[in-house]
C-alpha cells in the first residue's frame, strides 16, 4: 500500500546532541511537510518542500533544518536539541500543494530529549 513512513517511531537523544528524523513516501507526491506536535497541542507546521524548493515558516527556530535528497525522502535535522524540543514530529505529503488537496500523514516520531 502506498503510504507515508516515519522512522524511528521513538527516538531518544541527549540534550545538545544532533538528531535526524526520517520520512519516506511511496505516494510520489510533490510536497512534503514537517509538523511539530507538543503534548496536548495541535500540530504546528515547521516547513515544507515543494519538490526541491524549501519553504520555512517564519517562526521555525534555526535549530531545525531539513533535507530532501529526492522525491521519496525527507529528513528533519535538529542541530542541538533542547528539552523544549521533545515532541511528536509528523511528516505529511500532498500531491501538488494546491488549495484543494488533502494531506496524508505518517505515524509520527516521538522524540525524547534527556
Amino acid at each position, binding site marked *: 500500500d502506498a503510504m507515508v513512513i516515519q522512522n524511528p517511531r521513538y527516538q531518544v537523544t541527549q540534550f545538545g546532541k544532533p538528531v535526524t528524523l526520517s520520512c519516506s513516501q511511496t505516494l510520489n507526491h510533490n*510536497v512534503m*511537510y514537517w509538523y511539530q*506536535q507538543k503534548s496536548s*497541542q*495541535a*500540530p*504546528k*507546521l515547521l516547513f*515544507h518542500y*515543494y519538490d526541491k524548493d524549501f*519553504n520555512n*515558516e517564519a517562526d521555525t527556530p534555526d535549530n531545525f533544518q531539513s533535507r530532501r535528497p529526492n522525491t521519496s525522502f525527507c529528513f528533519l535535522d535538529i542541530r542541538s536539541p533542547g528539552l523544549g524540543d521533545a515532541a*511528536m514530529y*509528523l511528516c*505529511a505529503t*500532498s500531491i501538488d*500543494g*494546491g*488549495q*484543494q*488537496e*488533502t*494531506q*496524508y*500523514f505518517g*505515524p*509520527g516520531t*516521538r522524540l525524547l530529549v534527556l
Partner: protein
Amino acid sequence: GIQVEQSPPDLILQEGANSTLRCNFSDSVNNLQWFHQNPWGQLINLFYIPSGTKQNGRLSATTVATERYSLLYISSSQTTDSGVYFCAVEGGDNYGQNFVFGPGTRLSVLP
C-alpha cells in the same frame, strides 16, 4: 494569520450516543479538513470540506463558509472513535501549503 477555534475542548460520551463538534475560523478559507488523531498519534483525514455537506458512514460534516464555521457529526459513537479531532484550514490568500490546525476536541467514548 487565520485563527481557528474548536469546541468543546473535551467530550465524554457513552457508546451509542451522538455528538457534534464545532470549528470556527476567522477568515475565508480555501481548504478545510477534519482529522482524527488516534491514541497512538496517527492523523487520519476524515473530510475535505471547504463548503457544503458530506457523509461517510456514521460521520458527516457541514461547512458554512459564509458564516465561517464547520460541524462534524458523529452518530452511534463507538469506543474506536476516541481520540482528538482536529479541524485544519488554509486561508484565502495562501496557495494551499499552510495548514493551520485548531486546538482540537478530545473525545472519549466509554463502553
